[in-house]
């Protein structure tokens, strides 16, 4: 075929398409598409014939062919839209915009949702749930956790006492952290131990935007052979990625809790500004790029000894976090008191 013949053929195909496309009622646009533009369609075959035409003419003809192709595609798109259009509207006498039946809508407390989610993350990592009493003995709350009597570390946790005594005559207290569950679990179980213990704790502190005399913690403990600070970091980083997305990173800073050594404060990279709060200071991380979220460390040998675990044989890590802090971050709450006010206008926003 020469160039003239090819042009004539193109023109014929174009005419034939125009006639088919203009028929009333319209032909099925899908069938038309297959006939002209399909892999073995008329236009496709013609374009393939170009290979027999000398190079200098091939370019112009090719361009011509493509213009026709585009033209057809545009018409077909229009046809398809028309053939799928809905029929004329039927008017009814019902006002469908009236509200539907108000099925009851309750809500879980933000702290419950947060705690459940955190528990879920750790459950995937093989942590079991352990629980303990809220009225505790000095031994479990302090002494076995390496807070000796008359140690200044006791000042870190202002304690409520109640009008009851333990067997040794000491006042019973309201647990100041969930850590006593570590001791209770280890005393009742041989290693390996891998638990989380969520629950309510009490500190004799004035209530303000970031403090409450009643709050919640989640405790983690893992005891086995050869457990290290690196296992702790992996666990917490995996947890944070689960909660805050895969870009979350964890940083350890030196810190002190009597029941761990070495001790660390755990910070997570700020997922809210991603550390890029150059122009406006991020209100969450205060522009530092890091948010303090947990305390953690390697279980202190004195704690293992108190539970009759041999520190030369067993080692472990422990961590603890305030659930309020997580809930406030996740729900964007700036005042902790809001979590205990029980204003239903707030609570019903939790889905």
């Amino acid at each position, binding site marked *: 075929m020469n160039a003239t013949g090819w042009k004539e053929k193109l023109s014929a195909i174009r005419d034939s398409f125009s006639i088919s496309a203009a028929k009333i009622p319209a032909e099925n646009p899908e069938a038309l598409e297959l006939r002209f533009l399909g892999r073995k369609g008329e236009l496709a075959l013609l374009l393939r014939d170009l290979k027999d035409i000398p190079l200098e003419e091939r370019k112009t003809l090719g361009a011509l062919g493509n213009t026709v192709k585009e033209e057809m595609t545009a018409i077909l798109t229009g046809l398809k839209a028309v053939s799928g259009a809905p029929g004329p509207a039927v008017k009814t006498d019902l006002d469908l915009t009236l509200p539907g039946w108000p099925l009851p809508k309750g809500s879980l407390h933000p702290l419950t949702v947060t705690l459940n989610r955190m528990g879920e993350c750790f459950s995937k990592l093989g942590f079991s749930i352990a*629980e303990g009493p809220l009225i505790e003995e000095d031994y479990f709350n302090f002494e076995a956790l390496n807070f000796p009597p008359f140690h200044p570390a006791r000042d870190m946790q202002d304690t409520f*006492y109640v009008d009851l005594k333990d067997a040794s005559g000491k006042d019973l207290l309201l647990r100041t952290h969930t850590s006593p569950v570590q001791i209770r679990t280890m005393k009742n179980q041989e290693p390996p131990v891998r638990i989380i213990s969520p629950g309510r704790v009490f500190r004799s502190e004035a209530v303000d935007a970031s403090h409450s005399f009643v709050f919640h913690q989640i405790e983690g403990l893992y005891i086995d052979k050869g457990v290290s600070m690196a296992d702790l970091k992996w666990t917490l980083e995996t947890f944070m990625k689960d909660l805050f997305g895969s870009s979350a990173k964890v940083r350890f800073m030196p810190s002190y809790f009597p029941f761990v050594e070495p001790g660390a404060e755990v910070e997570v990279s700020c997922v809210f500004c991603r550390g890029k709060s150059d122009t406006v200071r991020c209100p969450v991380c205060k522009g530092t790029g890091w948010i303090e979220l947990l305390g953690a460390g390697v279980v202190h040998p004195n704690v293992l000894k108190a539970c009759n675990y041999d520190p030369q044989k067993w080692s472990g890590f422990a961590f603890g976090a305030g659930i309020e802090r997580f809930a406030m971050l996740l729900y964007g709450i700036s005042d902790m008191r809001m979590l205990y006010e029980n204003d239903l206008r707030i609570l019903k926003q939790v889905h």
Partner: protein
Amino acid sequence: MKILYSWLSDFIENPPAPEELAAKLGRIGLKVEEIKKTGAACAGVTVGQILKIDKHPNADKLSLCDVDDGAGVMRVVCGAKNIAVGQKILFARVGARLAEGELKKAKIRGVESEGMICAASELGLEGYDNTGILVLPEDTAIGADAVTLFPKADYLLEVEMLPNQAHCLSHYALAREVCLFYGLKLKEAAVLKAEAAGTSVPVTIDAPDLCPRYAAIVLRGVKGARTPEWMADRLRAMGSNPKGNILIDGSNYVMYELGQPTHCFDISKLSGPEIRVRRALPGEKLVTLENKELKLEPGMLVIADAASPAALAGVMGGLDTAVSGYTDAILIESARFYPPTVRLASKTTGIKSESSYRFERGTDPELMMKAARRLAGLILESAPGASVVQISDNYPVKYQLPVIEIEPSRVNAILGTGISDGEILACLKAFQPDIKDSKPWKFSVPSYRQDIESVWDVAEELARYIGYDVIPAVSRMPMLPSNITPHWAVASEMKNTLAALGFSEVYNYDFISAKEMKACGLEAAGAVELKNPLSSDYQFMRQTLLPGLLKTLRYNLNRGRDSVIIFEMGTVYAKKGAGKAEEVNCSGLMFGDFPEGGFWKAGQGKADFYHLKGVMSRLFAGKGGFRFEKPKAAPVYFQPGLALEMKLGGSSLGFVGRLAAGAAAGFDLKDNNVFYFELTMGSAASAWKPEFWQKIAKIKPVSAFPQNWRDLSIVLEEKHEWADMDRAFSGVQDLASARLIDVFKGKNIPEGHRSLTIRFIFSSMEKTLTDAEVAARMTAVLEKLAKNFNAKLRS
């Protein structure tokens, strides 16, 4: 703890800039919470004198002052109340630089001001009264530059101190920490070099277990020695109030500088004179420096003279032996006390001092002499005529440096790292330059680091030294099964169900007041009481979740809600004999419009008992053995006769009913249309199968044949209860269900009777029932009703 940058810099060669220093401290676990600029930050501010004060023509609260600043008389507008003619004041001309920036020309209420009379805060000065302008001493020279009158601009760092950081509680100690961890060179403070062999005041330690060391320096001829201005400036910057007497201020200064508390006794007031460190005797008393009389107890350690206690060791000195402006001979005490003894004394007496704070945490056993010599040296600089009479060091119990054997593999196992031997040794060398390189390394812990006791502690120091980032986030933790407790399983399921049924979960405090307890009809006798409540509102531990729920109800009604449907799961407490009973409850209430928010079609109403009963039925649907019973006795906060007990298996789960009128009134509610339930989670958990496979009920087959139904309306006396009838149907052949569809009283129904319409559904597994068969079964039903309940067909 407050740290003054310039002071810290005294001990570091080429100290890092304040911001960098803060970052360095943070990296090793010393968190700098704030960096504050201190001292006067100004330029072009001079001393002026107020010559004349006139009223501002357009403002009652403003004045017009003529101020002479040495270069001329200026007219300025001033708003302060404490101005007076003749005062020497700080005057800033237009163009002067103040803490907040340059002073611009301004018209105030129509009068142009040629400058400003300054308050202390306008120069960035801390610790002054800022309610008015700063009035300077009368002898201040007019025209003097303000920067010559106040300490130089400095930085005050607020460093958070954890209980294990006793080795950082001073400027020198913090400098030492920075130098050690960052390889900087530490500089020493100048101390008194002189020696003196004499003993004018003998020191005896009767309780070496509580006081292992007592260093003393006796000085004579210190009368009238004043605190130098540079020292007073530093103390002021620290927030301490210098007295002007070097004997008092110097002691504080040395404590802030070296971390060792010292005390000066006036020898002329010491009986003997002698010093005896001993346990307090029964009945002994001490009047402190703050003029408070303490009753001493035998567990306390005192510094006594020949007659009586002169100081409560480590906590506070006594008034009788205190130094004053007339003191000429002093004994400087620099001792070490057993930390728990100091803490006990501080707790018992309620006195917390900077000194007790440091002793409780443990002081450096090798620091006593250095601190005493430092203080003596400072006093001698202010009292050049004074002489050193005695330098003694009673040291009955020598401190032994602990030695820890370090295997590098052990340190790496704790941290989960692969730190090389060389790096570990470099860290140990920073602490102990002469450590020998033969494994296991024998690490002698410096005397100031009494918190380092084991290889775990050394691992932490190593991580601090290299940086905590050296710890990788990698793990080869084995898989372990994850279990939950039955309580946890039931709690989650119950919370989710209640939320799905329209209940919002609330969290209340565990503490209630006596008044709230009484409003619920509960006795204080059985309640656990706090020994140290924050206030009487939070004095008792709740025995039921009801008070919190009623408070929540009231709170939300006060905010315009028409309906409140809430629940809480939480611990309730009671006394049980001499012990405690603690259990988790789940309680909730319904009040107001139902459905919540109302509906435009029919069906709108108020929440009632049957709504809540339905919720309970739904909550325990499919739990075998769940039933309602009339209680023998319901808790007092339920309206009598309007509560049912819920049982699961044989055990009681709790109650559902209407709130007693008294309880409603006690929480300021207008009526008692509050429907309340209370469940004991322990009972629920024990009867509830936590295991998934056990929890699943086996599916029962259903009939392949069509079912038949008949409606029946009967009339019977009201005394017959539905539950009894429902039970009576149990033997009827092929009866699939008997559903109550209407209850009617009124027209055509005799007094004391009611009409029930019941729908009976019959279904056989074997065949389609014929009309005759269904009729026969209905006859059986009617016979039962007639026989047991004297029921008649409604005509």
